[in-house]
């Protein structure tokens, strides 16, 4: 009895310690963003600021740097929506009508295996030709193209897991195939939909290389903006941290709300071949 309690205590302690270790960089990031310049460079380091100062954030908003977060939101959000819509339709078709035979699905996922750096310059030249450099549409379409294989592959797995009889029952009950997709397939794969959408969004949100090459000033995303604070002479740690916090918050919030779907979605059906 006592032994078991001791092991529980030890395990909990280990878990707390590990969690603290992993969370420390995030904690530190948040703290720096609230500190004054002197506090940031103080030695020995100050574990928490003397007061919560929002000065660094104020600068970002005043200079207009914060709009890059809005750019990221629009671009990642729009490309996620488009990729989810097209990808789910394609996945349904692949899963239920064996569109393209046995190998089309594998070919599609292979498109995800291309190292982005290998195609970044051809795409840049293409975008120059099309006049899409430094436009939202350009990045939205590009991220959609990159995310589509992933969405198709994941959603196909979730859809294959839905018992076919559920769809057949709905067809007999009087639904059209489109209604079946809407009223049966989507509700049945809700957890998978959310999980896939989150990963798709996070990919677009964090994407750096294409954003760096394909944007100039108009639609800079926050990932690119952060790099502007690394200077030759000095690094603007206050801005870097405040910008990073702004860039992290949306993901925190989204994942916080959709956590239960995320866990269920990851653990279900995702490994169907």
């Amino acid at each position: 009895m006592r032994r078991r309690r001791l092991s529980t205590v030890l395990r909990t302690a280990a878990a707390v310690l590990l969690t603290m270790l992993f969370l420390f960089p995030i904690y530190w990031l948040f703290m720096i963003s609230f500190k004054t310049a002197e506090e940031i460079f103080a030695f020995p380091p100050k574990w928490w600021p003397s007061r919560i100062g929002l000065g660094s954030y104020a600068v970002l908003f005043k200079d207009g740097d914060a709009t890059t977060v809005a750019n990221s939101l629009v671009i990642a959000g729009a490309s996620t929506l488009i990729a989810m819509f097209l990808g789910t339709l394609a996945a349904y078709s692949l899963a239920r009508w064996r569109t393209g035979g046995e190998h089309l699905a594998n070919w599609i996922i292979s498109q995800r295996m291309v190292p982005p750096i290998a195609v970044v310059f051809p795409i840049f030249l293409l975008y120059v030709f099309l006049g899409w450099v430094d436009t939202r549409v350009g990045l939205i379409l590009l991220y959609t193209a990159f995310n589509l294989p992933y969405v198709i592959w994941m959603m196909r797995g979730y859809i294959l897991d839905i018992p076919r009889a559920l769809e057949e029952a709905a067809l007999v009950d009087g639904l059209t195939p489109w209604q079946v997709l809407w009223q049966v397939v989507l509700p049945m794969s809700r957890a998978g939909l959310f999980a896939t959408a989150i990963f798709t969004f996070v990919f677009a949100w964090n994407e750096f290389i294409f954003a760096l090459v394909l944007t100039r000033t108009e639609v800079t995303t926050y990932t690119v903006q952060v790099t502007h604070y690394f200077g030759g002479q000095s690094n603007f740690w206050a801005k870097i941290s405040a910008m990073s916090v702004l860039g992290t918050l949306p993901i925190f919030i989204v994942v916080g709300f959709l956590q239960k779907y995320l866990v269920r979605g990851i653990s279900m059906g995702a490994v169907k071949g």
Partner: protein
Amino acid sequence: MADLRIKGLHKYYGSVHAVRGVDLEIAAGEFTVLVGQSGCGKSTLLRTIAGLEDADEGTIEIGGEVVNDEPPRRRDIAMVFQNYALYPYLTVYDNIAFGLRARRTPAGEINAKVRQAAGMLAIDHLLDRFPRQLSGGQLQRVAIGRAVVRSARLYLFDEPLSNLDAQLRDEMRGEIKRLHQELGKTMIYVTHDQIEAMTMADRIVLLRDGRIEQQGAPLELYERPATRYVAGFLGSPPMNFIQAELLGDGGGVAVRLTDGTTLPLPASRTPRLAPLAGQPVVLGLRPEHIARAPAAGLRAGQVRHTARIDLLLPTGARTYATFALGGAPVVAELQAHDVSKTGEQLELAIDMNRSVLIDPTTDHVIA
């Protein structure tokens, strides 16, 4: 007028010829059971009727109208699936109401119909629950409720009881039959279980390798099987089959088994069988046609035979006793106390009136 008429139906899955030319007519209000071993094409046939599979050849008419090219929703059918096929994210009420809503039934009517169907199936107290909160038997009731709540032309059941345990299955069998009597709808029921077929059907359609082997009323098939397959499929324990030869001697006919035992056949069968004397046959005897012989006086057509009992399977009401006859193990259905232990010698009366003779080359029943 037939409510369902199928002509020359063929269905292929790649190189597999699942349904091989089925002609079938089902009258309005009839309860028809499609029965056969797994892979005989019964489920495929049902799914083709529902429109979930396309017919490769032949026509399907429902209510006089060819529906081959109609999608399931326009065929006006309701179906119960083997694995219930309930929507886990909807309550029992919404599951039952699903088909009515899909067909834009007014809300008040939906409510009345759902409650009526639920009442009929004794699930009215479960309407607010979700499928995951129900037991297997309750799930099956909901699945049936979802079908019968609709006023469809045709009700299809695809092995609806095969996921239930034996006791529940017995109960639900009666329930579905009662439902059919109350509703008077045309129902087609698929099962691999011959007892389900016998107990529930107005008419049994026995399928084998994608063809109809025989169809008719349950007792008709049971008592007058057309082939060895039908004779062996219906009945539990199954009919005993014994290799024999047909003998014709002046006055009458008899069968001689491989061990020399000769069993005379009743005189009424002589005219039909006498010309076939000398031909090898398979003798089919149902367990219930072999009884313990009375001390004296057999009924006409009964033959006395002494046997040593090798195996006893008491079930309470009856005891199934196995003995050797003509080199084959033969099961007799005896009264519970007819025999007390294996190894016992017993006088048996074999009722040759009811015996079946089969041509071993064609497997067709001769008489």
